């Protein structure tokens, strides 16, 4: 196979940034492949795609797309590629068909060719029944499909997709993936940028970017093979698996550890021969079971291991024992006009539990989450935080909860210190206690060097830390996390969960929404919300067991999720 794109020593700097966004990257992209472009936010993925598309001028090095330079021969290159940016330029006030028409006009596609193309694309994307619907009224997944259709109005040789699966639920993600794989069968080359490592695993080749450096270029299986024989599951843990994980993470033989339902997944050091399970307090029944490595294990290995330090929150003050039930949802229902966004949702969350709200976008998990945290008044039903009704004593109830939003939502114009001080005051911390808690947050999250920087200018990992610091400074009983680690690199995600786990050990209750299903593994219990209903509730292991079948004896959480949703659809449709 021939190389469609050849890149030599590509470097791109942006003004006012000390480090280049891309540092002498050289690679080849072969025709007819799906190439995964992997890396955390800010690692240079978008810059890379925009350079290939000719939207940016390289500082050093060269790009060759099918014999043309993207800047000098912009016209030739543009005729050959289609680029779908992260937020594709759909006109939300135009219908699906009008959007397609617009892009067809722009690309000069007319007459019978246009008709045939539209038919093919609408069939391909499954959007045919929705041609009259406004683009703004589509779900996240459907928007991405429409974006893809608009990008494919003229069949390109090279398709550049910038994180097409962000904000898309697992079902739509799979559909999107299937659609794109079909394109490669037609000979189109695809570059798929993603922060999801499980997507990268499915690509033919992957390019792994980290802080502007290309750290891996090859087949994902080759990368995974590097850690073969070093990945294990600890099964049969007695007691708290979070405690075991915490001990294991800090063990010298361990590179990385994560929670996988009731087990702990470990990546051992290259030279490690054995790991005594007794030394990490896993209990007598526990055993180490070798498992097949995943791309993520290899990725963590590549970047030198996961988060290994002790969380400063470990051994902190215990939260009050006087309550057993931290959060109660009683028949929570919310109507928007005649549309029921959430219907009769009831559950209890015990003190010191990590509880997940899981579901596709628009299914009602955010609505439920907002009712629980007091952002939205329920149409009927009630929510109690630590026994306090949110309707009658909202301010008091809110003082006992901490909240971390999906998007960075601190004040970008304020410095790190000013943000900390603001939230300390708002949560009623005064005098010596205020100083003490701010001091503790600065130490815990290593913010000392960043105190006077505007928080908007902080690197993503620090933003994440600062958001968490502001949410937990007042030692809340209940912590609400809305998609807390989407777009964050795997190591920061591990660090984040190490802190959360330490707090949970202290008795903090955590409610987390996510459609990032690896994250759901950290939950003690999870509620699956679909079409406004709670369709399943249980531990991750229970949910997986419910979905297990003869064809799929060992489902992943994502498999389980999809199976449960499909089962529900089969039951409810006549």
């Amino acid at each position, binding site marked *: 196979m021939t190389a469609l794109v050849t890149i030599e020593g590509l470097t791109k700097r942006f003004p006012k940034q000390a480090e280049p966004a891309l540092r002498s990257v050289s690679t080849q992209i072969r025709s007819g492949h799906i190439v995964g472009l992997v890396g955390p936010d800010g690692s240079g993925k978008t810059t890379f795609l925009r350079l290939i598309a000719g939207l940016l001028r390289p500082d050093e090095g060269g790009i060759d797309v099918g014999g043309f330079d993207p800047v000098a021969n912009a016209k030739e290159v543009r005729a050959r590629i289609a680029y779908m940016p992260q937020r594709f330029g759909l006109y939300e006030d135009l219908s699906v068909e009008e959007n397609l028409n617009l892009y067809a006009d722009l690309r000069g596609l007319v007459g019978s060719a246009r008709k045939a193309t539209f038919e093919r694309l609408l069939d391909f994307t499954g959007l045919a029944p929705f041609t009259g619907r406004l683009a703004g009224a589509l779900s996240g997944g459907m928007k991405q499909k429409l974006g893809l259709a608009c990008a494919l109005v003229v069949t390109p040789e090279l398709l550049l997709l910038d994180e097409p699966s962000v904000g898309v639920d697992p079902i739509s993600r799979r559909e999107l993936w299937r659609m794109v794989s079909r394109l490669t069968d037609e000979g189109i080359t695809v570059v798929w940028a993603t922060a999801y490592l499980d997507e990268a695993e499915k690509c033919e080749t992957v390019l792994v970017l980290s802080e502007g450096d290309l750290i891996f270029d090859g087949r994902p299986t080759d990368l995974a093979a590097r850690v073969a024989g070093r990945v294990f599951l600890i099964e049969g843990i007695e007691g708290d698996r979070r405690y075991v994980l915490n001990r294991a993470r800090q063990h010298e033989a361990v590179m990385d550890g994560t929670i996988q339902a009731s087990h702990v997944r470990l990546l051992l050091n290259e030279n490690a021969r054995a790991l005594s399970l007794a030394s990490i307090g896993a209990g007598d029944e526990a055993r180490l079971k070798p498992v097949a490595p995943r791309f993520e294990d290899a990725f963590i290995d590549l970047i030198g291991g996961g988060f290994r330090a002790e969380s400063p929150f470990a051994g902190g003050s215990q939260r009050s024992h006087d309550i057993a039930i931290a959060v109660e949802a009683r028949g929570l229902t919310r109507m928007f006009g005649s549309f029921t966004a959430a219907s009769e949702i009831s559950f209890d969350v015990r003190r010191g539990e990590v509880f997940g709200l899981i579901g596709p976008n628009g299914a009602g998990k955010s609505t439920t989450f907002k009712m629980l945290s*007091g952002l939205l008044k329920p149409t009927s039903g009630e929510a109690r935080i630590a026994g306090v009704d949110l309707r009658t004593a909202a*301010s008091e109830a809110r003082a006992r909860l901490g909240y971390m939003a999906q998007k960075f939502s601190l*004040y970008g114009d304020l*410095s790190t210190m*000013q943000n900390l001080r603001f*939230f300390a005051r708002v*949560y009623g911390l005064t005098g010596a206690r205020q100083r003490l808690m701010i001091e503790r947050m600065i130490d815990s999250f290593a913010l000392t060097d960043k105190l006077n920087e*505007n928080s908007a200018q902080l690197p993503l990992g620090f933003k994440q830390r600062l958001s968490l610091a502001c949410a937990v400074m007042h030692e809340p009983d209940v912590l609400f996390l809305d998609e807390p680690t989407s777009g964050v690199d795997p190591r920061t995600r591990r660090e984040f969960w190490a802190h959360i786990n330490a707090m949970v050990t202290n008795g903090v209750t955590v409610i987390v929404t996510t459609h990032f299903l690896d994250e759901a593994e950290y939950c003690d219990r999870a509620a699956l919300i679909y079409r406004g209903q709670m369709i399943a509730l249980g531990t991750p292991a229970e949910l997986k067991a419910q979905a297990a079948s003869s064809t799929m004896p060992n489902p992943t959480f994502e498999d389980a999720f999809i199976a449960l949703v499909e089962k529900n659809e089969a039951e409810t449709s006549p």
Partner: protein
Amino acid sequence: MWQRIYALIVKELLASARDPQTRWVVLFSPPFLLLIYAFAITQEVSDVTLAVYNQDHGNASVELISRFEGAEVFDQIIHLRAGADIAPTIDARRATLVMRVGEDFSRRLERGESAEVQLILDGRRSNTAQILLGYSSRIVETYNRERLDRLRATAPVRLVQRTWFNPNLEPLWSAVPALFAVLVAVVGFMVSALSIARERELGTFEQLLVSPLRPFEILIGKSVPALLIALTSASAMLVLGMLFLNVPIRGSLALLFFGMVVYLAAIVGIGLFISSLAKTQQQAIIGLFMYMVPAVLISGYATPVENMPDWLQGLAAATPITHFIVISKAVYLREAPLWLYFSHIWPMALIAAASLLAATWLFRRRTG
């Protein structure tokens, strides 16, 4: 509770001070606008032709006219032969002002009586007319003083002005207080209308709503900084007005600032109301202009409120700008009687109370 509000106020002020855009839009640009507008008004005076119709043949009138001829403002002097020429001269813009000296001018002065000089100004160029009137008055005053010194005469020349097309011409300075009122409103509107919408857009608003802050606490925490910022900007405008435009403040500064606080409370209330309605900053800006432009137009800034139809006058009375323009003019230029002052304070206080309550109410509704 007070600590929470204090926290919010500090945060708002810091955020405004640290954001270069806000700093520019809010603190620096309005005083500049004031200067630019004011200079634009002043510098309109150019290419002025004075027409003289002298029916008098005595020395006194010749002396007075020669002073006008010697003044720098008048680029050209033309002499009219008949009273009937006056109207066509103004109509055809051959002259901006006509000075008419009656036939008994010198005779009356010699007899020790007061004599009149008539000035006819082209009111279509009202700003120029105002300025020329100022010049002419000074020329006549100087003439009077010197004549009195010389002759110890008791009867001065009186200037009788007639401004055609715009009979009740007000002095130049009246433009600055009105402009000041409008610019203060612009600052207050901008700061408040953007504040909630911006937080909503950036997602920080939810962070506030899950904190123990209550809706009315957020509202107070949003109004006070907006008010302080607008007051700072206003003070800068006052100082600039005195230094560069030579517009002095004759009335009580305390009354002006008290009036301004009430005024800004009303402005900020309306701004926050608009902000609570908007989902994005763009919507807030559009909403703001939909309110602000008509409000300024009916406020008496451009045309006198008395000349408007009754229903429009009613609307004008519901606009804080209308009231503050009166107060601003009154306090700026003279010692206003207190009854006049307070008759415009209470409507603004009422608007402030109503709009702030409405904003709180809307805000509660919008937050679920």
